[in-house]
């Protein structure tokens, strides 16, 4: 008789053109995300899973499965990654990566970019009331925490800066909208780009904000 253990009929792979069952897709997403240290874009998941798979659904299942575990599924922009639970950080002293200490200027510049993005260098300087050192932005660019956004459609077409997915990943944010206190700051008008009160004749030079009014206390224009 035939007492071989395998039941070849159940194998999912003989239905070559059907997407695998959702539970199987969940396993696949789990494997792909586990294997990567970097967040994986949802569309890349779709590309790597068998044709017809729906990673979005699988991700919902997976997120639930890892709720409260030592490892959690987190969303980073349009991407997903497994990360250890924050409450277990005390176990991880051995894994801590020594990062370069950021200067106060760099930290403030980063925060301004995150909360005001897209933001020009002149605007950062206006907010901090001091010139931005070239090296400061370079450092943030190099860490891949900020990148260039679109040019501003104002005279001189200055470049703008925005934060990256790496930034979101580092600070455990799903998106830039989840920045702590963002709503309150916006409600308080503190994210407005409020120009200094009009100065009459001095105003004319203000248009080309590039140089003169670096520290921009109102009226210190020239």
């Amino acid at each position, binding site marked *: 008789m035939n007492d071989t253990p395998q039941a070849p009929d159940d194998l999912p792979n003989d239905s070559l053109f059907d997407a695998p069952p959702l539970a199987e897709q969940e396993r696949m997403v789990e494997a792909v995300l586990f294997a990567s240290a970097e967040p994986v874009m949802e569309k890349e998941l779709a590309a790597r899973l068998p044709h017809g798979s729906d990673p979005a659904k699988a991700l919902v299942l997976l997120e639930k499965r890892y709720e409260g575990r030592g490892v959690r599924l987190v969303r980073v922009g349009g991407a997903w990654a497994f990360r250890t639970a924050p409450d277990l950080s005390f176990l991880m002293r051995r894994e801590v990566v020594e990062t370069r200490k950021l200067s106060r200027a760099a930290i403030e510049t980063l925060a301004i970019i995150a909360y005001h993005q897209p933001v020009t260098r002149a605007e950062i300087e206006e907010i901090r009331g001091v010139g931005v050192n070239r090296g400061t932005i370079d450092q943030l660019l190099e860490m891949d925490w900020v990148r260039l956004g679109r040019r501003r459609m104002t005279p001189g077409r200055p470049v703008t800066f925005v934060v990256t997915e790496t930034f979101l990943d*580092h600070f455990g944010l799903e998106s830039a909208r989840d920045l702590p206190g963002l709503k309150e700051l916006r409600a308080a008008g503190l994210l407005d780009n409020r120009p200094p009160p009009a100065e009459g004749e001095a105003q004319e030079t203000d248009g080309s904000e590039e140089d003169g009014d670096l520290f921009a206390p109102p009226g210190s224009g020239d």
Partner: protein
Amino acid sequence: MSETPETGNVTEIDARRAAEALIVDVDGFEGPLDLLLSLSRTQKVDLRRISVLALAEQYLVFVDKARELRIELAADYLVMAAWLAYLKSRLLLPPDPADEGPSGEDMAAHLAFQLERLEAMRDAAARLMGRDRLGRDVFARGQPETVGRVRRAQFTASLLDLMQAYARLRTKDDFRPFVMDRNAILTMEEALARLRPLIGYAGEWTDLASYLPDGWTADPLRRRSALASTFAAALELAKAGQLELDQAENFAPIRLRATRDKA
């Protein structure tokens, strides 16, 4: 709102004391706005209710003190001092109706806004840096498995490529009558094309001359050309390992047979 009676609360002496404490640290400030923010803390009020006039005075005292101690302040600190002195005068003097510029109140309000905004950004930065951070509080997979890349080349060609290729070949062909199609010439390509399918049958040594095409043996010119090109074709095939060549002695017939390795 900036001309509150608190102005008088900050005495000259207090301000000087504060300035002296701050002056030690002048390098520690990130510019005049930062210094103003630090000074404003001595007022111990919400930034929205701050006395800009008092703040301007504190700042001016600070700058005076620095001069007294012969500390060189960066130009932007002095620019700010000049502007604050101007602001102070605007706040204290009754508004001049002939003056087109913004009122002292507007200017003061904007300065208060800038301070509040800077402080808000500073708080936001602190909250940001205090979050659970990757590599410090939260960790990624320590042993990521690499994704092997399998390169697969996909070749493409357009119909135009195809037609151009064919056109190129046919153009070449059009010129053939000029160059090649003289009656007495058998090209090596022709000889090769003829010889190639035939050698399969050349199991035994056979005279090369027997491979000359019909109609090429009578006319000596044609025969010479045919023999030369067939010999060249035979050499080519021998080079390719498809046949073997043999000649018993000088001017003896050249013989060929198929290579025998397929058996």
